[in-house]
């Protein structure tokens, strides 16, 4: 199988403190992959290292078998919503158009074609009516959709999204996951930093369990087990037994008799809260 992303022996450190420690990872082409792990596990750093935004101390990153620089146009990026100033004087259409700046290259200005494809992307995320809206007037979910539209216009083959589900309402969450599935059926690969363990089996094909080191990665039904989660989150995960119903592999099952992942009540503890520097 072809790999959209290969990470070999990646170590990232801030001074002498390792944030990521010898990470190996293969992301197969055409899958939705979640990166989960506690706050400060290095999730955001991993994405940033792949995108060349932080410099690794060691290791190699390949996108479709080649270096990131040569594949830049094939990579789309959705940063955390909170990473930008939403009071910046610009409108929705303009932000989405920014996704095309890379393809335009230096000096050239966006024209009618760029406007049209930005509008099309806004259409896809259900935000076409907001094209002329000032970005400071958007709700959190709307901001997130604008960011997604901006990634869509990049028309990349592999997308990295940093907590796209953070603080959005249920409608937006459904819209986003529908969009991710659409991308997958178009053969794209999407890697998502995710915080809601409960929805991992439902939304994703593959998962990376990360806490500075790679604890496990692979298909969700093989590696998303209580044991692995306990390793990732340390003793803090008292609730993983509830995942018994979803984690398919035998022998790792904890407390039986709990409801499946979508069962009502009792499972609220499954969501890890907060963002942190990741």
């Amino acid at each position, binding site marked *: 199988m072809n790999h959209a992303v290969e990470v070999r022996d990646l170590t990232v450190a801030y001074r002498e403190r390792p944030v990521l420690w010898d990470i190996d990872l293969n992301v197969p082409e055409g899958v939705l992959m979640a990166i989960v792990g506690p706050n400060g596990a290095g999730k955001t750093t991993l994405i*940033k290292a792949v*995108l*060349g*935004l932080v410099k690794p101390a060691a290791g190699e990153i390949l996108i479709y078998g080649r270096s990131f*620089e040569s594949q*830049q146009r094939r*990579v789309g*990026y959705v*940063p955390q919503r909170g*990473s*930008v*100033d939403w009071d*910046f*004087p*610009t*409108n929705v259409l*303009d*932000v989405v158009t*920014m*996704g095309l*700046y*890379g393809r*335009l290259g*230096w*000096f050239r*200005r*966006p024209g009618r074609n760029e406007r049209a494809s930005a509008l099309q992307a806004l259409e896809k995320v259900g935000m076409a009516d907001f094209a002329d809206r*000032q970005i*400071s007037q958007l709700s959190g979910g709307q901001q997130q959709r604008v960011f997604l539209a*901006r990634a869509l216009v990049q028309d990349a083959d592999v997308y990295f999204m940093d907590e796209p589900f953070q603080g959005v309402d249920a409608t937006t969450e459904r819209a986003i996951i529908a969009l991710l599935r659409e991308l997958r059926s178009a053969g794209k690969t999407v890697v998502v930093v995710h915080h809601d363990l409960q929805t991992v089996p439902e939304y994703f094909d593959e998962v990376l369990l990360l806490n500075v080191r790679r604890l496990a990665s692979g298909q969700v039904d093989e590696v998303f087990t209580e044991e692995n989660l306990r390793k990732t989150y340390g003793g803090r995960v008292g609730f993983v037994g509830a995942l018994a119903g979803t984690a398919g592999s035998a022998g790792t099952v904890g407390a039986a008799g709990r409801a499946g992942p979508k069962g009502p009540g009792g499972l609220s503890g499954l969501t890890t809260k907060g963002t942190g520097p990741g």
Partner: protein
Amino acid sequence: MVVAAACALPGVFLVLRKMSMMSDAISHAILPGIVIGFFATGDLGSPILIAGAALTGVLTVALVEMISSTRLIKEDAAIGIVFPALFSIGVILIARYAGDVHLDVDAVLLGELAFAPFDRFIVAGHDIGPRSLYLMSGVLVVNVLFIVIFFKELKVATFDAGLAAALGLMPALLHYLLMALVSVTAVGAFDAVGSILVVALMVGPPSAAYLLTDRLSVMLALSAVIGAVSAVLGYWFAHLLDASIGGAMATMVGVAFFFTWLLAPEKGYVARQRRRRRQRWTFATKMLTVHLLSHEGLPEAAEECREDHLTDHLRWEPAFASQAVRVALAGGLVSRRGPLLELTDAGRKHASRAVVEI
């Protein structure tokens, strides 16, 4: 005027990057660059001075970023450490070695625009105008060109540096280019208005423009205009009072910002207060109509829908209650029948819409 416009343009990006205080730092810290350049050439108008200043400006930014990246202290404190250090080196150099030349501390702090016209630019024996006018016009042209050419890149790098980097648009390079430009602008303006007032011209007009528009291009144009107008007003003001021109200009920038803050159509203080008052009455009539709707046609209506009942049950102040009723009556939402208030059709719709909104 030219100075003010030239300062306002890069100032826009400083304000948007939340780096306003960096203009303060740069405009002070370039002093040693200027002084050393002066020693090297012996000429205050030499381009070496500008190059020296640009280098020191970039050095300032680099030092500040280096210190704050250690995470031992915050960026504002780092700025506070770096620029006085560089500035004082410049002051000491002047005091020690240049006591008898045209560079003195007063001029450094406040500029001496009044004398600028006497420093003529002589080419081949012909007097073709004040030298600093040419210098600043050149700086203005460079600033305009830089921003026009890199408008798209500057915009994305300022809004979302991460994306800019991921798109291969090198925001770090752009950042230092911008800082070099700020430094060059500061040197030019320095001659005219001194190092303190440069800050007023770089931060004031963009901040005022920020309150007036939601578009970056408009913000750039507006801040240049606001800067230029303040400069002209300041000049005449100073003329009238026989006061420092630079001081009067900076004052005018402050005045311009104050009026913008007060009167800006959307974000201004007056507009916000008015909006808040309107929302208060909109909400009051909503409460009133919802209250009437929920008791409409029921036996207790005779009691609940009396006007004087509002003060009891809704716990409204009498003045507030009668004003709310007046607003609702004027808006055709309720009608009076004796002591009772009744919903009109419009009022009923209004109330049910309000309920749905929740």
